[in-house]
C-alpha cells in the first residue's frame, strides 16, 4: 500500500479538535508540555485561550480536567499514552472514572510504533489499564478518517473516554462516502470464510495487507475492524466465530489485557472457538524505526500472514 495516503492519527486528533473547537465553546484542550508532539499545537494556534498547558505534571492535569468538567467544560487531556494511562492511572481512575466525569483523554504515541524513543515511551499496556476502569469508553481508531470521527463521537457522548492515537503515519483506509462511525460497533472490512482477523488501530491496515497475502496463498480471511475496545461489539465477534470458526486478533499492544483478551473473554463466554492473539508478547519494546520494529515484532502484514499460515498449518 505504498501509494496510499498516510496520516498519523495524532495529527487527526489535533485537526479534529480544531474542527470541534469552532463548533463548541466549552471544549478545552489540556496538555502536559507535549503540544507539539500530541499535535494539539494546531488547536493552541487557533484557540490560544482555550489551550491550557499544565506543564510536565500529568497527575495534576487529570485532576484539573476533572474540576473543569464539573464546571461544564469538556476537557481533552493530551499526553503520551505512557503518561496519560500509565503515570496518571490512579488520577484517571479516582478523579475521572469513579465520579464518571465528562473528561476525554487523548493519548498519543501508543504502542511500539513510537519507534526510536524506545521501551520507556512505548506504552503497550494502556488498553489493559483503561479497560479495567468501570465506565471508561476506549476507542483505538485505525486511520485518519476514523480518528476524526472518534474525537467527535467522544465529545458528543457523556462520560470519560480514552482515545488512543499513534505517532506513525498510517494508511488512510476508511476514506469512502459510506463510512459510518458508531461507538461500540465493529465493522467487517473484508469478507472471508477460513478465519477471521479482528484488528484494531494501525493493525487494521496491516491486516488488510495480511489478507492479501493470505488470499494469494489460498486462505480466505475475513477482517473485522474493532475501533471501540470498550464497550466491545460482542455480536460481531460471535458472528465471526460462528461463520469462520477460527479467530485471530491483531493489535499493537500487549497480548495481555488488550483487544485479544477482550475478544477471548467474549468467545469463552458465548461461543468458544480456537483463537490466537497477535500483539506484543509479554516483553518490553526497544529502539528502532517504527516500521522495522513492526516487522521485528511480527506486527506488519507479512508477520501477521506468516503467523496465521503457520497456525493454520498451511
Amino acid at each position, binding site marked *: 500500500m505504498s501509494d496510499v495516503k498516510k496520516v498519523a492519527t495524532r495529527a487527526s486528533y489535533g485537526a479534529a479538535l480544531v474542527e470541534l473547537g469552532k463548533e463548541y465553546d466549552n471544549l478545552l484542550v489540556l496538555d502536559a508540555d507535549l503540544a507539539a508532539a500530541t499535535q494539539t499545537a494546531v488547536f493552541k494556534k487557533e484557540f490560544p485561550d482555550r489551550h491550557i498547558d499544565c506543564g510536565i505534571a500529568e*497527575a495534576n492535569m487529570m*485532576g484539573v480536567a476533572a*474540576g*473543569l468538567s464539573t464546571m*461544564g467544560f469538556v476537557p481533552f487531556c493530551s499526553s503520551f499514552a505512557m503518561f496519560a494511562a500509565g503515570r496518571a492511572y490512579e488520577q484517571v481512575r479516582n*478523579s475521572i472514572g469513579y465520579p464518571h466525569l465528562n473528561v476525554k483523554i487523548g493519548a498519543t504515541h501508543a504502542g511500539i510504533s513510537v519507534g526510536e524513543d524506545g521501551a520507556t515511551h512505548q506504552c503497550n499496556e494502556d488498553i489493559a489499564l483503561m479497560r479495567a476502569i468501570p465506565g471508561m469508553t476506549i476507542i483505538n481508531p485505525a486511520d485518519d478518517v476514523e480518528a476524526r470521527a472518534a474525537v467527535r463521537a467522544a465529545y458528543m457522548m457523556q462520560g470519560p473516554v480514552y482515545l488512543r492515537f499513534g505517532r506513525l503515519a498510517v494508511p488512510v483506509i476508511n476514506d469512502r462516502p459510506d463510512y459510518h462511525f458508531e461507538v461500540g460497533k465493529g465493522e467487517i472490512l473484508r469478507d472471508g470464510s477460513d478465519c477471521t482477523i479482528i484488528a484494531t488501530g494501525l493493525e487494521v491496515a496491516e491486516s488488510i495487507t495480511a489478507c492479501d497475502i493470505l488470499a494469494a496463498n489460498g486462505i480466505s480471511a475475513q477482517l473485522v475492524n474493532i475501533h471501540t475496545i470498550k464497550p466491545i461489539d460482542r455480536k460481531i465477534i460471535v458472528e465471526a466465530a460462528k461463520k469462520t470458526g477460527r479467530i485471530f486478533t491483531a493489535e499493537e499492544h500487549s497480548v495481555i489485557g488488550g483487544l485479544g483478551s477482550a475478544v477471548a473473554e467474549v468467545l469463552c463466554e458465548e461461543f468458544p472457538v480456537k483463537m490466537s492473539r497477535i500483539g506484543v508478547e509479554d516483553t518490553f519494546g526497544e529502539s528502532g524505526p517504527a516500521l522495522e520494529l513492526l516487522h521485528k515484532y511480527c506486527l506488519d502484514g507479512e508477520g501477521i500472514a506468516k503467523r496465521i499460515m503457520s497456525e493454520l498449518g498451511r
Partner: protein
Amino acid sequence: MDKLELQKKALQVRKGIIEGVHSAKCGHPGGSLSAADLFTYLYFEEMNIDPKHPDDPERDRFVLSKGHTAPGLYSALANRGYFPVEELKTLRHVGSNLQGHPCLGHTPGVDMSSGSLGQGISAAVGMALGAKRKGSSLRVYTLLGDGEIEEGQVWEAAMFAGFRKLSNLVVIVDNNGLQIDGPIDEVNSPYPIDKKFEAFNFNVINVADGNDFDQLRDAFAKAREEKERPTAIIMKTLKGKGVSYMEGSVGWHGKAPNDAEYEIAMNELNEEEKRLCQM
C-alpha cells in the same frame, strides 16, 4: 452567626462524627474532629451555599482533599440541612449515601469524589480555573491534611494555581501534626509549610489555633481581600479535638470508639454543650 452559635454548631458536628464512626465501627475520627470547627465555619458562615439547591451552578465549591475525614464533612452537611442528621448512622454501611470517602453524586452537597490523597486539590484548582473562565465570582475551598501534602501532586497543583493566579481558590491545611505512622515531623516532615506555599506564589495566612472561630473568621476575611494570588490558610489544630482521650493521639487517626468509649465521648460533648448553653 456569632462565635457562641458557631461553637454550638461545632458540637453538633462533633457529635455527628462520633455517631457515624461508632455506627460504622471504623473510620477516621481524629482528623474529622481537628477540622470540625473548619467544616462548621465553612458551611455555616463562609461559603455561599444553599442546602435546598445543592446543584446551583453559582454556589461556592468545597473539595475535601483529605477525604478520609468524610465523617466531619457529612456531619457538617447534615447539620446544615442537606440531608437528615439521622442518616449519619448509615456511614460506611452497605447501600448508604455516605461512602467511606466522599463520592460525587451519592451525597447531596458533596462537590467532588476524593480520598486518594493529593488528588482533591487538583480538582479544586480545576474548579477555580473554570469559575474564572466563566467570569463567575464563586469561590473554591479545599482542605488538605498536613500529612497529605507529602504527596507530590499537591505541589503540581500548587505550582499551577500560583502560576495561574487563581485568587478565587483557598487551600486550607489542617496542621494537626499527626499522620498514621506518627508525628509528621518524624515521618517525612513537610515543614515549613507556609514557606513552601509562599514559594509557590500563594498568599499565606498562618492561624495559630484553627479550633478558634475568631481566628478562623480573621483568616477567611483576609483571604477575601486577596485579589491576585490563591490563598493558603495553614491552621494549627488539635487532632481529636473535643474528645479528651482522642486529643493529640495518633491512635485515633483511623479507629472507631467502642460502646463504652462512645458513651464517654458523647457525655463529654453533651457536657460541653450544656456549658455553652448556660453562657
